[in-house]
C-alpha cells in the first residue's frame, strides 16, 4: 500500500502492544490495545496506521471521558459511571422545561425568549498553553467559539469568559522544573492570546477570574468559555445518508497533530511543540459570517467544528449513525508532504464540517465563495455504518462505526479518600486589622484585574449592561456580567463563575459546593433569577490512576449532584481535563495541580433594567450583611497570609441557601437594593472594602451586629471568614423597614452605615479595629497587577 503503513498487531504480545501505543503517542492502555487487536483478529487483518490513529483519537480521555464514564471503586463502594450518577443525574431529575439540549451537543442550550435560545460552553486548553502560551490560549478561545458556532445548526457568539490559574508571578527561578516556562511569561502570553483572538472575533470578553497558586507553576490552567444565541428552530441537527461532507474554512497542516491524545498524558521537557495549533481569528470570523448566512437559508442538515482530533473526531461524530466515505486527497493543504493519517487527525484550526443535501450544494458553495472562504466536498455520509477513508482510489481505512464509538473497554479505577488534617492556626488576633485587610487585597488572586480586562474588548456588540468594571471611576470589581444579545429587547444574559482550589486542599466535596454557591450568588448579586440559573462543570485534575486524586474527583462530583439538586440549577454542559501533571526529568517525580473545579453559571435576566452593581451609591444608606457567618477559616486567604491552611473549610447549607437566594431576588425585584456584592475570598472585609472604594464612599461597620455562629469569637475571623451564601447589601433608609420585613426569618442584619471616606470597623467590644482611607485600600488592591 502506498499511502499507509500496516501495523503488525495480530502477532504482537502485550509488551509490544504497549510499545506501539507509547511510541505512536496513542495514549491507549493495554486493555484498549487488546480490544483493538481482537477487533482486527475478527477482521483477519492488521490495522493501517490511520485506523489506529482514528481509534486512539476517538478513545482518548479528552474525547471519551473514560474516567468519568468508567467504573470506580470509591472507598469500597462501586460507582458505575460517575458522570451519570452525579452531574447528569441532577440535570435529569431537575428536568427544567427551559433546558433545550444538554450533554449531547457541542454546548448546552437553554431558552432565551420566544424566538431564541442561548448556548454556553466552557473548555480548557491547558497543555498547549503550558508549552506555547500565546498560541495555546488563542486557539483555546478559538476552539470554544467554534463549539458555539457548531452547536445545533449554529449559534452566534455573544460573550466570552476566561478563567486562568497560574503560578505566582514572583515564583523563584530555582524552583522551576526543567522545561517549564515561568508563570510570569505564561500569564502575559495567555492574556495576549485570549485578547487577540476574542477581540478580532468581535466577541466581548466580559467575565473571568485569575487564580495564582504555586500548584500551577508547571501546569497552568486556561479555561475559555463562550455564550451564543440561536433561533429556536436551529437547536438540533441530523445527518441524512447521501449528504455531502463539506469542509469549510482553514487549510490543513501539520499543526496540532496528536492534540487529543497528548492532552491525556503528563507533560515533560521533551513534549513536542507541533502538538500546539496555530490560530487565525479572521478566518474564523469569515467562517462565522458564512455559516450563519447558510444556516438562515436552511442549506445544511448538520454541522460541527473540527476540534480535538480534527476531521477524525468531527466526521466520526457526525457519521456515528450513517457512516461516511472520505477522500483525503481532496482536503486543501497548507503545504505538501502530509501523510493521510496526519491530514485525518490534524487539529489545524478554523475548520467546520457540514452535511449538505446534494440539492443545496450549489447554493451553499456560492455563499461560501461570496464570503471568500474556502469550501470543499471531501466525501459523503454513506448509510453503511462504516468509516471508509480513501486517498484517490486507495482505501486506507474500513472500520465499523459501532466499534469506533462503543468498542473500547471500560476503565476500572480505585479511589480512596483520606481525611486531611493541617496544623491548627496558632496566632493572636492583631490589634489593628488594617494591615491584614491590605495584605488580602494585595493577594494576586484578589487584586484588581483591570490591566487584563481593559485589554479585552468587553463592550463590542453594544449590549454590555453590567460590566466587569464598575463604580464611580469605572474600576470596581463586578460580580456577574450581563449583556443584551438582542438590542431591541430588555432581556439579558448574565454569566459568572465560581472557583476556589484552596478549599479542595481540605475537601473537594466542599470546594465543589462552595464553587457552585459562588457561581450562583454572583448571578444573584446582579439581580438574576435563582430559578433560571444553569451551570457548567469543568474539572481539571491530576492523574485518575492515583487513588487519592481520584477520590477527590469523586467527592467533588458527589457535591455537584447534592448542591445542584438543592439549588435547582441543572448542569447543561461540562468537561474534564485530567492528567494535568508535569514530569520532572531530574527527580522523576510527576507534579500535579491541585484538583480544580470551575463552575460557570448562566441566567436569563427578564429585564436588565432591574440589575444592580456592587459599588456603594449613597451617603447615609444602611449596610446589611445577608447570610450567617461561621468559623470557616480553612483555605481562606487570611490564614494563607498567616502561614496556615486550616481545617474548617466553608460549607454550604444548601436548603437554607436556596431560600435566601429566592428572598434576595424578591428584594431586587422590588427595587430595594442599591448595591450588592457577594462575600468570597477575604470575606466580609474584602467585600466592604471593594464596595467602598468602587463607590468612592466610606463606611462605619459594627462586628457585634453580624449574625454568626456561637464559636466565632475573634474579630479577625469574623471579618475574614469565607463562609458561603453571604451578601453585603446597600439599602436606602427609606426602604429599610420593607427590607427587614422581607428578611424577617433570615440571617440578615444592619451592620453599619455608608459615610465619609474611610472604612471604619468596630470589633465585638466596640473598639475600632480597622480604620483605613478607602483610597489607600484601593491602592493596595490595584498596585500588584497595575503593570505586571
Amino acid at each position, binding site marked *: 500500500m502506498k499511502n499507509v503503513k500496516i501495523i503488525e498487531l495480530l502477532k504482537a504480545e502485550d509488551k509490544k502492544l504497549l510499545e506501539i501505543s507509547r511510541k505512536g503517542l496513542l495514549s491507549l492502555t493495554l486493555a484498549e490495545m487488546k480490544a483493538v487487536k481482537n477487533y482486527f483478529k475478527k477482521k483477519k487483518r492488521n490495522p493501517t496506521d490511520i485506523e489506529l490513529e482514528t481509534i486512539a483519537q476517538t478513545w482518548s480521555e479528552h474525547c471519551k471521558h473514560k474516567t468519568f464514564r468508567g467504573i470506580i471503586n470509591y472507598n469500597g463502594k462501586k460507582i458505575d459511571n460517575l458522570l451519570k450518577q452525579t452531574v447528569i443525574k441532577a440535570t435529569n431529575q431537575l428536568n427544567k422545561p427551559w433546558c433545550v439540549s444538554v450533554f449531547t451537543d457541542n454546548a448546552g442550550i437553554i431558552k432565551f425568549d420566544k424566538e431564541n435560545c442561548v448556548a454556553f460552553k466552557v473548555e480548557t486548553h491547558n497543555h498547549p498553553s503550558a508549552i506555547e502560551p500565546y498560541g495555546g490560549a488563542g486557539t483555546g478561545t478559538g476552539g470554544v467559539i467554534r463549539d458555539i458556532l457548531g452547536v445545533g445548526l449554529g449559534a452566534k457568539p455573544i460573550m466570552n469568559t476566561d478563567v486562568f490559574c497560574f503560578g505566582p508571578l514572583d515564583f523563584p527561578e530555582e524552583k522551576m522544573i526543567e522545561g517549564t516556562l515561568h508563570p510570569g511569561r505564561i500569564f502575559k502570553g495567555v492574556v495576549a492570546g485570549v*485578547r487577540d483572538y476574542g*477581540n*478580532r*472575533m*468581535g466577541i466581548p470578553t466580559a467575565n473571568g477570574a485569575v487564580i495564582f497558586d504555586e500548584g500551577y507553576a508547571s501546569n497552568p490552567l486556561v479555561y475559555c468559555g463562550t455564550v451564543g444565541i440561536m433561533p429556536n428552530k436551529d437547536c438540533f441537527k441530523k445527518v441524512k445518508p447521501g449528504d455531502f461532507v463539506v469542509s469549510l474554512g482553514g487549510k490543513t497542516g501539520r499543526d496540532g497533530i496528536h492534540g487529543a491524545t497528548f492532552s491525556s498524558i503528563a507533560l515533560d521537557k521533551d513534549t513536542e511543540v507541533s502538538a500546539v495549533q496555530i490560530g*487565525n*481569528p*479572521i478566518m474564523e*470570523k*469569515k467562517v462565522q*459570517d458564512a455559516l450563519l448566512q447558510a444556516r438562515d437559508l436552511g442549506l445544511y442538515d448538520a454541522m460541527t467544528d473540527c476540534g480535538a482530533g480534527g476531521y477524525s473526531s468531527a466526521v466520526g461524530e457526525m457519521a456515528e449513525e450513517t457512516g461516511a466515505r472520505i477522500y483525503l486527497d481532496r482536503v486543501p493543504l497548507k503545504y505538501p508532504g502530509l501523510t493521510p493519517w496526519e491530514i485525518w487527525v490534524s487539529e489545524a484550526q478554523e475548520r467546520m464540517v457540514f452535511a449538505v443535501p446534494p440539492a443545496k450544494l450549489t447554493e451553499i458553495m456560492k455563499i461560501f465563495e*461570496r*464570503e*471568500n472562504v474556502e469550501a470543499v466536498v471531501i466525501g459523503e455520509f454513506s448509510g453503511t455504518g462504516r468509516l471508509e477513508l480513501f486517498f484517490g482510489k486507495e482505501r486506507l481505512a474500513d472500520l465499523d462505526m459501532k466499534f469506533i464509538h462503543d468498542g473500547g473497554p471500560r476503565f476500572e479505577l480505585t479511589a480512596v479518600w483520606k481525611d486531611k488534617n493541617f496544623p491548627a492556626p496558632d496566632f493572636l488576633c492583631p490589634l489593628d486589622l488594617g494591615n491584614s485587610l491590605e495584605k488580602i487585597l494585595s493577594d494576586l488572586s484578589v487584586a484588581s484585574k483591570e490591566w487584563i*480586562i*481593559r*485589554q*479585552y*474588548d*468587553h*463592550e*463590542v*456588540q*453594544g*449590549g*454590555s*449592561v453590567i*460590566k466587569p*468594571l*464598575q*463604580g*464611580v471611576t*469605572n474600576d470596581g470589581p463586578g460580580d456577574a456580567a450581563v449583556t*443584551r444579545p438582542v*438590542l*431591541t429587547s430588555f432581556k439579558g444574559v448574565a454569566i459568572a463563575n465560581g472557583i476556589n482550589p484552596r478549599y479542595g486542599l481540605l475537601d473537594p466535596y466542599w470546594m465543589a459546593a462552595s464553587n457552585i454557591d459562588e457561581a450562583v450568588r454572583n448571578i444573584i448579586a446582579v439581580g438574576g433569577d435563582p430559578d433560571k440559573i444553569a451551570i457548567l462543570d469543568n474539572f481539571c485534575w491530576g492523574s485518575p490512576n492515583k487513588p487519592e486524586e481520584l477520590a477527590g474527583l469523586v467527592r467533588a462530583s458527589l457535591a455537584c449532584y447534592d448542591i445542584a439538586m438543592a439549588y435547582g440549577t441543572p448542569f447543561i454542559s461540562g468537561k474534564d481535563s485530567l492528567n494535568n501533571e508535569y514530569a520532572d526529568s531530574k527527580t522523576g517525580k510527576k507534579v500535579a495541580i491541585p484538583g480544580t473545579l470551575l463552575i460557570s453559571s448562566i441566567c436569563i435576566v427578564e429585564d*436588565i*433594567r432591574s*440589575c*444592580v*452593581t456592587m*459599588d456603594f*451609591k449613597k451617603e447615609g444608606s444602611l449596610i446589611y450583611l445577608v447570610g450567617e457567618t461561621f468559623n470557616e477559616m480553612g483555605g481562606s486567604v487570611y490564614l494563607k497570609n498567616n502561614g496556615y491552611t486550616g481545617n474548617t473549610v466553608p460549607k454550604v447549607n444548601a436548603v437554607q441557601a436556596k431560600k435566601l437566594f429566592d428572598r434576595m431576588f424578591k428584594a431586587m425585584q422590588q427595587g430595594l437594593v442599591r448595591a450588592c456584592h457577594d462575600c468570597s475570598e477575604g470575606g466580609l472585609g474584602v467585600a466592604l472594602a471593594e464596595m467602598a472604594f468602587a*463607590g468612592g464612599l466610606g463606611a462605619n461597620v459594627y462586628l457585634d451586629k453580624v449574625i454568626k455562629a456561637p464559636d466565632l469569637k475573634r474579630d479577625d475571623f469574623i471579618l475574614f471568614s469565607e463562609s458561603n451564601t453571604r451578601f453585603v447589601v446597600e439599602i436606602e433608609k427609606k426602604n429599610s423597614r420593607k427590607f427587614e420585613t422581607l428578611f424577617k426569618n433570615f440571617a440578615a442584619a444592619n451592620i453599619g452605615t455608608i459615610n465619609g471616606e474611610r472604612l471604619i470597623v468596630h470589633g465585638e467590644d466596640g473598639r475600632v479595629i480597622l480604620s483605613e482611607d478607602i483610597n489607600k485600600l484601593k491602592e493596595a488592591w490595584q498596585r500588584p497587577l497595575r503593570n505586571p
Partner: protein
Amino acid sequence: MKKKVKVIVIRTAGTNCDYETVTAFKLCGAEVDLVHINRLLEKEINVMDYQILAIPGGFSYGDDVASGKILANEIQYRLMESISKYVAAKRLIIGICNGFQVLVKTGLLPGIDGIDKKEYTTLFNNDSGKFEDRWVHLKSTSKKCVFTKGIKNLSYLPVAHGEGKFLTLDKKILDFIKNNDMVVFKYVNANGGRAVYPENPNGSVEAIAGICNPGGNILGMMPHPERFVNRYTHPRWTRVTLPEEGDGLALFRNAVEFAKKNL
C-alpha cells in the same frame, strides 16, 4: 410621504461592530443594508443608491499590513470611481474606529486634496502600547461637521483600540485641519479641560479623537458612538441620573435628518 433614508454599512472579513452600527441607524428611522465589500466590487450594488455610508469597527482583514490597509486598498483601487461620485454629491460617510483607519488610508480623510494623494494623517499605536477599552469624555468642536450639529455638551463614549493615536504628516497638515474647522472631537477630562492619559487614551496629537473633511460630510472617529445609544450601556447607569438616550445616538440622528432634508 417622507422618503426613507438609505444607509449602507460595509463589512468584510474581520468587521465586527456591524450589528450595533446597523441598530443605531435603524433607531433613527433609516433603512439599513449590511453589505459585504465584494458586492460593491462586483458591482452588484451601487453606493449611489444610498445617502449614508458607514464603515464600522473591527479588524478588517486582521489589520494585516497595517490597520484598515487592505480594505482601504480595495476601496482606493477598485471602488474609487463610484466613491468619488458619491463624495462629490455631498453624501455622508462615517468611519468608526477601524473605519476611521480605513478612511485615512484611502485618502478620504482629511480630504485636503478632495481625495488625498498621500496619507496626510495616520492612527498609530497607542502610547500605552496596548489595546484598551475605556470610556472617554469628548468635546465636540466643529461647526461644519454634519454628524455633530447641535452637540453642545461633552459626550461620553467608549474607545476600544490598540492603534488610535492620531498624528499628522507635519505641522502644516495639523494647522490646515485646525484652521478649516475639521477637528470634530477632542479628548478632554471630565470637566472639559486638557486631557492627559487615560483621558486621552492613546496620546493623539492635540487630543484629537475625530476629524472631518473640509466639506464636513465625511467623519472619522476612534470612539464608538454606536455603543452608547441608550442609557443601559453607560458604565454608571446604576448610580447616576441619565436620559434614556445615549450620547452616541445624536450622531446617527443628525446624519439621517440631514440626509432626509438635503440628499
